[in-house]
């Protein structure tokens, strides 16, 4: 896999994120310039994380500052939730689940499955990208605050094909 992101994937995540926020959070988003390349780490106060397996392997992380996360969850579920509650984590998980599902549907010709979401909450945590993968961070601005969709992925089929055959 080259060390740059295929624009098709970037468009897929931008459109999926836009659709989820328009439909479920009832907010319009503005997108900044995606930052491609290998990121040493991704950091935020709230991370909704979901894994991809299949022809493409990787992780999709909805990375939010605490205040943005609380405001977005409130707009999503209709009530203010404590960030330490299970319901708060559930809402973040469902947002990244819908973004991931919407994006993978645009991976034409690729057989990809997404897992169940995990949510990490706490200042200064990091989400390490998979070894051998490339990453991109898509900055998003909503009326509730800023956040980013950080994607780390590698094409498994291509990676396997480039390895020497076993003796």
């Amino acid at each position, binding site marked *: 896999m080259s060390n740059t992101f295929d624009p098709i994937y970037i468009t897929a995540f931008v459109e999926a994120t836009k659709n989820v926020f328009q*439909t479920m959070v009832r907010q319009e988003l503005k997108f900044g310039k995606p930052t491609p390349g290998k990121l040493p780490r991704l950091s935020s106060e709230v991370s909704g994380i979901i894994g991809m397996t299949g022809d493409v392997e990787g992780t999709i992380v909805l990375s939010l500052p605490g205040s943005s996360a609380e405001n977005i969850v409130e707009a999503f579920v209709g009530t203010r939730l404590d960030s330490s509650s299970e319901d708060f984590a559930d809402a973040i998980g469902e947002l990244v689940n*819908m973004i991931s*599902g919407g994006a993978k549907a645009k991976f034409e010709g690729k057989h990809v499955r997404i897992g169940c979401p995990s949510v990490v909450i706490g200042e200064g945590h990091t989400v390490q990208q998979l070894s051998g993968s490339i990453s991109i961070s898509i900055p998003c601005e909503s009326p509730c605050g800023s956040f980013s969709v950080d994607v780390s992925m590698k094409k498994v089929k291509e990676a396997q094909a480039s390895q020497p055959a076993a003796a």
Partner: protein
Amino acid sequence: MLRVMVIDDSKTMRNIEKSILNQLGYTEIEEACNGQDALTKVAAFNPDLLLLDWNMPNMDGLTFVKTYREQGNKTPIIMVTTENEKTRIVEAIKAGVQNYVVKPFTPDVLGERIADTMAKAEAA
């Protein structure tokens, strides 16, 4: 009054679907957090309609549909899921799902699918 069972591992989505159902006038609602949980509750609740997520722990939605239909149940099922590839939709329909809603969805879309599904069930 329509009796609806909402099956989703996300409490957030169950609450959103319940809120929409309430707005549509459906108040007899039971919840289940996965396919296995739904199988244990469905006989006692006797629903007229199931709203079913696909990706859930313990028993996913597709396995639930197959098991539920193998038991002879004919209650209409609407799959409400992020799985939106054509092959997956066809797979669900073949397993016995009557209708399909892709997340994210608007209240109008869910309402239309419910009305369409129940109209076809009554006509059958």
